């Protein structure tokens, strides 16, 4: 396969995944801001949303304060924010168009259809109801993209490179939400069980579509260390770091087997997976959740760089 094609496939999947993540952040934030202040504390949820999306700098360069109007516009519709939902879909579609030949009709039509549909939402939405419908639509687009790829694409390097993009992005997103909210997950006796945090925890789980999964896995009310466990170490949970790395190792290996050659990407992915497999939540808390996550984000970026230099350029 052309290196450029692999690069386009990789970024196509990354941007679709990112669009979904942004939609989930916004949806969870809308829910939090709909609660009385007594239930969620006085923190500015819109500021947190910007931080979780990882674009504090770009945001503060344009706005002095974060509120519903400017954050929703910035994260969802702004043409100036390179990672707004609108731009994610635009870039995903540009990448898809460049590799039109490598995609199945179903996958292409999902992206192209979404891009056409995006125009219908114009430069923003008038009502909250409409906005929620928009966020739902973004998530459905991502599901349809994932589903059509899963159901229609040949299991060859085309599929594998797009999966690498998806899981590296997903791992980055999960790590990022943990990084912004880690202080709420620390086992601190004073806070545990307070109504203040309950809704924040629920919001975290909602952002990674794991609220129901949590109850299925632990059959307990929300406990911060269990939430951290679910998102970091539980390989059953599709957005956990452990699960992302199960998949990354699998797809890196598939590529290596097909090409008959191992390289830095394979070694790197395996090393990160092994670290996750050998970690216990208690130890992570002891040595510092924040430090653990920071290190993971760095490692995950390094895998992206290794894949890029080994295959994409």
């Amino acid at each position, binding site marked *: *396969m*052309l290196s*450029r094609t692999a690069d386009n496939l990789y970024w196509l999947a990354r941007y679709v995944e990112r669009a979904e993540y942004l939609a989930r952040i916004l949806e969870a934030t809308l829910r939090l801001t709909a609660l009385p202040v007594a239930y969620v504390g006085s923190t500015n949820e819109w500021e947190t949303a910007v931080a979780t999306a990882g674009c504090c700098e770009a945001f503060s360069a344009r706005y002095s304060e974060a509120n519903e109007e400017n954050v929703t516009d910035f994260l969802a519709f702004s043409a100036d924010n390179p990672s707004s939902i609108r731009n994610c879909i635009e870039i995903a579609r540009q990448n898809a168009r460049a590799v*039109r030949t490598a995609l199945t009709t179903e996958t292409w039509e999902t992206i*192209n259809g979404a891009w056409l549909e995006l125009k219908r939402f114009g430069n923003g939405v008038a009502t909250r109801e409409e906005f929620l419908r928009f966020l739902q639509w973004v998530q459905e687009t991502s599901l349809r993209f994932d589903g059509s790829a899963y159901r229609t694409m040949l299991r060859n390097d085309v599929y594998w490179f797009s999966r690498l993009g998806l899981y590296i992005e997903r791992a980055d997103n999960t790590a990022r939400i943990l990084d912004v909210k880690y202080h709420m997950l620390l086992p601190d006796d004073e806070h545990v069980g307070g109504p203040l945090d309950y809704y924040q925890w629920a919001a975290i789980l909602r952002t990674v579509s794991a609220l129901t999964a949590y109850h299925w896995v632990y059959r307990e009310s929300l406990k911060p260390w269990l939430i951290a466990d679910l998102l970091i170490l539980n390989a059953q949970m599709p957005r956990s770091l452990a699960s992302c790395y199960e998949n990354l190792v699998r797809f890196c290996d598939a590529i290596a087997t097909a090409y008959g050659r191992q390289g830095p990407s394979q070694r790197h992915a395996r090393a990160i997976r092994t670290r996750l497999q050998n970690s216990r939540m208690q130890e992570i808390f002891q040595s510092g959740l924040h430090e653990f996550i920071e290190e993971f984000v760095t490692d995950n970026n390094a895998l992206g760089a290794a894949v890029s230099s080994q295959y994409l350029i």
Partner: protein
Amino acid sequence: MAAAFNEMREVDGRVRPVYAGLDRWLSDLAPDVLEHRRREAEFLFRRIGITFAVYGEAESTERLIPFDVLPRIISSSEWATLRAGLEQRVKALNLYIKDVYGRREILRAGIVPEDLVFQNPVFRPEMNGLRVPHDIYVHIAGIDIVRVDADTFYVLEDNARTPSGVSYMLENREIMMRLFPELFSRHRVAPVENYPDELLATLKSVAPKTASSDPTVALLTPGIYNSAYYEHSFLADRLGIELVEGRDVIVKGQIAYMRTTEGLKRIDVIYRRIDDDFLDPLAFRPDSALGVPGLMAVYQAGNLTLANAVGTGIADDKAVYSYMPEIVKFYLGEESILKNVPTWRCREPEHLSYVLDHLDDLVIKEVHGSGGYGMLIGPKADKATIAAFRAKLKSNPKNFIAQPTLALSTCPTCVEEGVAPRHVDLRPFVLCGRDKIRIVPGGLTRVALKRDSLVVNSSQGGGTKDTWVLDV
């Protein structure tokens, strides 16, 4: 201008045999069905992404070519004649190009004037004396044909560089079969879907001698901003070959390679959809960022086939066009099966004076123009335009040819007021390989959707139709 030939109906209104099935189907059809299907087709085209870009329109860079849901029908006996004529014409084009870049017999015989070749900006001195693999220059030709009466098809133009439109031929058929299964159950339509296979076989057959027994073919595109990008990606997909841009290809030791996830891979045949000028910044335009530096050196070393070859423009120029009957005769010793539109060469004084006297009856075209730009349609032009053109003609007569305004044939077409005749042309695609010439039956029919308009170009409001070759 004579009344246009109606392909569906005789002058007395009777339906011609070849259209009888379509006519019956149309008369059985519930109202609104056509309009419904038309909208469905538009939706499908947009959804599949069959768009083209219009240069100079920043606002809407991707537009649809309007698709007309009524097929254009040609009888198989008419097609047999067309087919023979197309084969003959493309053979002659190839022999002519080989001769011009080789022994130049036709120039020495005084049949084609030398300045027409050597002063032509698309003449490529780099090709002089270069033997291209298997002596084939034009591997893919699009020959534009118009019909003027029951027996006469004229060649309007030869496209020997990078003819486009074949993806529309293929997609139009797919969409028609999806929308009108009932109509297809009543007709046995000659298939076109094997075109990609025929094209791949053609391209592989012309690989250079230094290639392996299973040569690697790639399609070279200028990229996503090119107006025909959809077609490039569509064809690469159907052929199962890589769609490469200039930056994907590098030249090392007089071999062309593409960069892949598994390292460098040799390319033997490039189906290039990029003009000569932009092919190689070292050989042609140095400012081209689209091409591959060093590609011409690989070509000249005999390690690469370019389809089509470099410099084929000398054969499809509008000025050379008028010599095509003589060119066919010179190389093949046969009369041309397909006729040319009667053409006045303004370079010749008698012709020029005739043209200047009849400007308001004629169509005047620039010899190097294309896409319907830069022409004068005498009967439709106002006095000032004609006067301006007269001045242009006098100052540089060699730059122009003139033809009568043709009454292009018409086909039933879905328009706002219902089904009405509209003017059409036809572009069959001729594939010339080492082993044989391949042509899928039919081609791309273009239709002028505006009433009485003769301009079928998609850039100027033309649409397309599915084209059927039917046994009667």
